């Protein structure tokens, strides 16, 4: 299991980095070295410890990434002999999910991991769990009140846009009047706006680049194919395309092939296996993808286990797990695709 340990280390490393500000804020000037022996006994590791029952209320897996979330959570829970996972049937329906979380509360699980269909709508039931003494790990879609969760771990949509924008910017920085096109995700979702905002902000660093068109698709292969074929028709020449989601990217790539175009570079989003394979093969316009790592679900299980056992996490000085962990939106291209291939989801 060496690959497992290193990925785990990587994730916790990322957790440590992104909460850097928090640490410097909290630790003041006390000497850490003095406590370190004491602390090392508190850190969660792979050795079996106190038995923990984790309740997991995940999304309905009707999309590659959401499916990967459920898979990651279940696989990571199986890894620990001391963890029992009580997983509910995934749901996109707010009322149904509230019912599921309440059932888990009634079952008196030790810790809850919830990826809400709608963070705001699930806030009340999060509060209820916390009041009942069950700490909640809020996964990705954030609850409206910080009182409703003990810890939040999720992705960075704005950061995805930034990473994509910077990657494209660096590739095109020497090109005069470069033109960029954006195939966004579902416009009804706030996260889509955040991704676009990050992208636009990054492009501001490159005055030679202009975004000439943006169309939103629905995160599906069908919509990706349909919107992309029209974008290609509208924009007879451009230098780079950022597509928010690798699932709709399957359709977008199909449209690009059907139109016989190869005069630009494409950057995807999320980190699907098919995208990573295409990047590795380097035989299409797709040159990179920006991660929105579904491994965050595995990390959420780690955090929940540490919470249940009353331990901190490796690589951090704190006795407790952090309250806020934002995953980094790394860019995967041909150079580093081998490292990330194992996290690609189908």
């Amino acid at each position, binding site marked *: 299991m060496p690959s497992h340990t290193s990925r785990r280390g990587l994730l916790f490393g990322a957790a440590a980095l992104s909460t850097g500000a928090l640490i410097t804020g909290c630790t003041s000037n006390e000497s850490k070295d003095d406590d370190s022996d004491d602390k090392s006994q508190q850190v969660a590791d792979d050795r079996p410890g106190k038995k923990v029952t984790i309740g997991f209320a995940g999304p309905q897996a009707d999309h590659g990434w959401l499916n990967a979330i459920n898979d990651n959570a279940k696989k990571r829970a199986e890894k620990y002999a001391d963890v029992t996972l009580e997983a509910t049937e995934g749901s996109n329906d707010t009322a149904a999910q509230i019912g599921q979380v309440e059932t888990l509360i009634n079952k008196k699980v030790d810790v809850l991991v919830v990826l809400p269909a709608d963070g705001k709508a699930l806030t009340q039931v999060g509060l209820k769990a916390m009041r009942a003494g069950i700490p909640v790990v809020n996964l990705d879609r954030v609850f409206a009140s910080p009182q409703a969760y003990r810890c939040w771990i999720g992705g960075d949509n704005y950061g995805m846009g930034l990473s994509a924008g910077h990657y494209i910017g660096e590739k095109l920085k020497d090109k005069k009047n470069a033109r960029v096109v954006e195939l966004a995700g579902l416009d009804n979702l706030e996260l889509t706006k955040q991704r676009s905002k990050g992208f636009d902000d990054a492009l501001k660093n490159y005055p030679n680049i202009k975004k000439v068109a943006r169309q939103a698709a629905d995160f599906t292969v069908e919509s990706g194919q349909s919107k992309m074929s029209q974008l290609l028709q*509208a924009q007879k020449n451009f230098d780079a395309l950022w597509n928010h989601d690798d699932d709709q990217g399957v359709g977008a790539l199909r449209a690009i092939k059907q139109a016989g175009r190869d005069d630009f570079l494409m950057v995807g989003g999320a980190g699907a296996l098919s995208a990573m394979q295409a990047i590795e093969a380097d035989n299409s316009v797709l040159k990179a993808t920006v991660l929105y790592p579904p491994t965050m679900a595995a990390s959420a299980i780690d955090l929940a286990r540490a919470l249940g056992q009353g331990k901190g996490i490796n690589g951090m000085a704190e006795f407790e797990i952090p309250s806020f962990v934002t995953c980094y939106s790394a860019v995967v291209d041909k150079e580093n695709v081998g490292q990330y291939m194992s996290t690609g989801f189908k």
Partner: protein
Amino acid sequence: MTQPAPAAEAATHKSTPADGGSPWRTAFARADVRTLSLLGVLAALIVIGGITQPDSFLDSDNVQLILTQASVIGVVTVGMTFVIISGGIDLSVGAIVALASVWATTVATQEYGFAGILFTAVIVGMGCGLVNGLLIAYGAIVPFIATLAMLAAGRGLALQITDGKTQMVTVDGVLKLGERDSYILGIPPLVLVFAAVTVAGWLILNRTTFGRRSVAVGGNAEAARLAGIDVRRQRLYLYLLSGLCCGIAAFLLIILSGSGQNTNGNLYELDAIAAVIIGGTLLSGGRGTITGSVLGVLIFTTIQNIFALNNLETATQQIAKGAIIVAAVLVQRRSATTT
């Protein structure tokens, strides 16, 4: 029967078996004006597209694109037209397309190649249509409820089969059909299938007993029964026909997107119903045309194309689409009643 196409079509719609000679002329005139007004809307859209994006809208690539994108939903709409003419509704079309497409792209199916995929898509589509038909015709469940149930169950089954994953097509012959090399005289094969289904639908509706019975059942089911039509069997066949169209559409979608996904055919039920209604078919049944429905689909697809070419935002697109639906129906009703 030597009239030009729309006229002949219009005539037969109105003339239920009980219908004789005299209302024939007015019916012809009415429906013809209806078709003309739809053509007018389409022409206006083409003018708008041509003015706003003269370089990209009118070139042949874009015409191919519009027709290709109309093909999948277009085939579904032909089936939906029959169902609505008979006074029914099929809310399950999108779910059937999804189910047929994921079943046809499962790994096992792909081992049997092109024929395996096509056969599975069509069989799954017809199977769902058969269930709908049996529930409605012999189970006496109203179409709205029966097909709503099929919508839920079909989507669920599609999700279960794929486990939320996108199923990539690996059969070369299928993928090739969606690419430029396979265009026949500049026409994408998908568009040819759409055209064939349209012509077949038109012939069945206007030139066969089956077509006349469909209209009769929609006009007045009791009268049709008294006239000796086996109404239940007719209904069964109609939903079977709609399922068949969904199966064909699923196959086209597989060619177009190179994959099967449980989200395929999302909201097709609403798009198809909207196109049928814009096309002048009565939601209460008894009257309708295939030409109108197909024009409805083309109007929708052209609107979307113009939106994308002009880089309109999603919100603006949705508002404009709503306005255009209302405008199209108003124009059509006005021209139909004033004649």
